[in-house]
């Protein structure tokens, strides 16, 4: 039974305990436990099929766990909510493949993401039609897309789309950001900018980053969790984790 008063739970922004997810008999997550503290940035590494994306799916309400506890902010049970409710609570997600609204302008992408009422009535008559340009500008400034404001998002380069999606996350102003492979397909220069960007964001938000790029993980300089076959294999400082013989065996290679 979950102890609702346990200090580890009440202090956490995200608390996963014993999460198991099976697809047709395949255990994508196997008794996974993970705790993220407020203001923390955590990097998740692990080989393909380790369950990184499934974990994101559970946290954001896309998949339901067969068993286990997923609590947000120490008190809200995520397994009973759907995607929209979880997003409203304050969990933002960036997909592995950059997913922006390609036929909208960059500014409209941010406008749609900005925190505020999201029901159809508000969208037709209400406040969302009058959202001030400065709020959009502020986000675009942070993700360095100000000069692309009026371009259609579909015309952006791959790296710019990744940044726009991170900008959309920021606009949502979530407590917790889940960022799935933000630097996949980026040049070295873009990767460095993205690391700076995430560190900047981490000053005011908790962040979970899934990434394969070890240079990038090193650049972030945060606590690392290595997943393997749906559960935690090792956790700690990157140097300790990458020195762990089991991690070398399954992931880093000899």
């Amino acid at each position, binding site marked *: 039974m979950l102890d609702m008063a346990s200090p580890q739970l009440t202090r956490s922004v995200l608390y996963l305990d014993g999460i198991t997810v099976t697809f047709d008999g395949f255990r994508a997550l196997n008794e996974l436990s993970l705790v993220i503290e407020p203001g923390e940035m955590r990097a998740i590494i692990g080989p393909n099929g380790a369950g990184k994306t499934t974990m994101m799916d559970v946290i954001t309400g896309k998949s339901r766990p067969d068993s286990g506890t997923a609590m947000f902010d120490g008190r809200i049970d995520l397994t009973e909510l759907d995607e929209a409710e979880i*997003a409203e609570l304050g969990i933002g997600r960036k997909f592995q493949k950059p997913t922006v609204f390609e036929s909208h302008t960059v500014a409209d992408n941010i406008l749609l*993401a900005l925190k505020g009422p999201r029901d159809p009535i508000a*969208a037709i008559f209400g406040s969302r039609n009058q959202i001030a340009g400065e709020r959009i500008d502020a986000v675009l400034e942070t993700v360095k897309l100000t000069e692309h404001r009026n371009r259609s998002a579909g015309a952006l380069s791959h790296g710019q789309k990744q940044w726009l999606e991170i900008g959309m996350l920021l606009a949502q102003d979530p407590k917790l950001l889940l960022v799935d492979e933000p630097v996949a397909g980026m040049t070295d220069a873009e990767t460095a900018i993205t690391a700076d960007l995430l560190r900047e964001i981490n000053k005011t938000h908790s962040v979970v980053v899934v990434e394969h790029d070890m240079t990038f993980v090193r650049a972030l300089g945060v606590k690392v969790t290595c997943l393997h076959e749906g559960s935690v294999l090792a956790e700690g400082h990157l140097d300790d984790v990458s020195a762990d013989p089991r991690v070398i065996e399954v992931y880093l290679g000899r």
Partner: protein
Amino acid sequence: MIVKKLLEDGLDRRTTIALSAIALAILLVPILNLVVPPGSLLHVPDDKVALFGKYVCYAVLALSLDLVWGYCGILSLGHGAFFALGGYAMGMYLMRQIGTRGVYAHPVLPDFMVFLNWKELPWYWWGFSSFPFALFMIVLIPGLLAFLFGWLAFRSRVTGVYLSIITQALTYALLLAFFRNDMGFGGNNGLTDFKDILGLPVQSKTTRVILLCASLALLGLSLLAARMLVASTFGKVLVSIRDAESRTRFLGYRVESYKLAVFVLSAVMAGLAGALYVPQVGIINPSEFSPANSIEAVIWVAVGGRGTLIGAVVGAFVVNWLKTQLTSGVLASIAIYLAVPPAIANKAFGAEAWLFALGALFIIVTLLLPKGIVGTISDLLERRKATERPPETAPAASQPAE
């Protein structure tokens, strides 16, 4: 205030031009038909008024379909059902206006009920003698059906081709139901022999012109409403759902509420179009529910250009004008003129040729004009504007290559 803002955002150049054209037609057609003498070159004959009225109703149906398909990605292959339901509600009002002038001269029961030996009016016909009640039903019935259907389908996250198939099944089921005599809607023959609408004789010249103008007004209002809707944030969310549904969900939008809202609105629009269509063609029968009708409406939108609103209107006019030309045997006459024996010409290029032409049109548009007529023209205009503009002001050009 809010409406003013919506109007400012909604009235782009294209919509203003279209609305002006509609207003001009409302002003001119009555004069050209009723005042200008029949011999004059400018005279609009009565049969053209009726035909034009029909096209205008189709244009509203196309517009309603573009709203759900072009902007929200819901490919409804059963939108004709909402059109037909609006038509039936109007037909029931018109039947009740016949009174004792029917073949059997029954004061209450329509002819087909007397013929079926029914003794009293079924409960669902109550109230239809009143126009306000009928108007209420014209809005309510398609809206309610769309709400129930959409609530079940969108909440269960049925999308794409599966959704299209069940919309098709919906209209087919209604087709079969309305064919049955014991449903009480006139079975195979449907509702016809209308006499009066709001006290005016349905067949008279003046009434026909009034009905045409009412249809044009409906088209104008629908276009304006649809344009205001898609220019608002609501419209932007619809496009987001069309392009990346799960992204929209993860931003915190209730996708099913948005789909439901636009689907119901679109169904009401289609129902109103059907209601104005029926007095102008003088009959409503179950064939209006046939899946082929709904698919034709999809082709109008595709030909005109989906996701443009104006394109739906243009497509409905162009395709239906072509249909009128081809089914009236113009092709056969040309073939005979080109020395094809009449027997062969009438067989190969007669009314049946239309279905082949429609199929060919769909293939041509899909292959060569994937954005439809309006989409292609606006692309061409933009490209011309881009080449006229000096290159250094183009925003993209100043960016470093990546």
